[in-house]
């Protein structure tokens, strides 16, 4: 017996507009990444024209806002917890570069609190993060 096959309709997906969709997605993700958690914690970066790249393979960022509140990964931490975090991180990865991202209008004593912890822990290098042209 001859089985008759149905002729299927060939469905084609119009893909010429895919690049348009990808482009819109790109804009969307770029906008979202601009409103990331660094901006939620309001920090005005200090500015400098001359600067070096301080990013290392392993990094630990400490943020200090205008009022001197210290943040780690977006959460408020006290100095004791910060000390423990630094110790834990450095024990796991001794090459961790520590970045201090402080608001340009914060009094220096707030930055000094963190620097003193690093000195106490005998951490040799710190990076003061700035932005500029």
């Amino acid at each position, binding site marked *: *017996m*001859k*089985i008759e*096959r149905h002729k299927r309709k*060939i469905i*084609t*997906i119009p*893909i*010429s507009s*895919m*690049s348009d969709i*990808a*482009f819109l997605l*790109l804009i969307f*993700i*770029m906008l979202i*990444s601009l409103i990331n958690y660094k901006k939620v914690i309001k920090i005005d970066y*200090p*500015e*400098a*024209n*001359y*600067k*070096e*790249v*301080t*990013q290392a393979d392993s*990094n630990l*960022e400490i943020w200090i806002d205008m009022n001197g509140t210290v943040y780690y990964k977006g959460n408020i931490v006290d100095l004791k917890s910060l000390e423990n975090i630094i110790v834990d991180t450095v024990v796991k990865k001794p090459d961790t570069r520590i*970045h201090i*991202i*402080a*608001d*340009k*209008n*914060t*009094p*220096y*004593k*707030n*930055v*000094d609190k963190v*620097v*003193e912890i*690093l*000195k*106490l822990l*005998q*951490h*040799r*290098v*710190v*990076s*003061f*993060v*700035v*932005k*500029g042209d």
Partner: protein
Amino acid sequence: MKIKRKNRNIFDIADSGSMSDLAFLLIIFFIVIAIFNINKGFILGLPQKNSTKIVNIKDIIKINIKENGDIFYNKEKVTIDDIEKNIKEDLDNNPNLTVLLKIEENVKYQNVVNIIEIVRKLNVENFSFSIMKDGE
């Protein structure tokens, strides 16, 4: 019984023409994301707490920053532009120069960064910064 197969026309659903567009956009996306995450600034060496280093007093330049933003270069009031000029001149005369930056507690962080920028730009090897305690 022999079932006859029909030769179907091959349709390339994922048309490779627009795939290159997609790949290109992805590359741009990753480049942009990578640039966003790079921290730039100044790498500073920290001394051990309460450690001292003996330096010849002639090699020391003291820069004080006051709360109101005033800058004193060896007790002489100067502007931020003068600082660069002064350090450069002194550095030419004395390559072993040690810059000692004393910062009052409530000085804005930006003012401190301005001085650090100058010191790093001029490649001053011996640079020390510390907060000014009351009575200093």
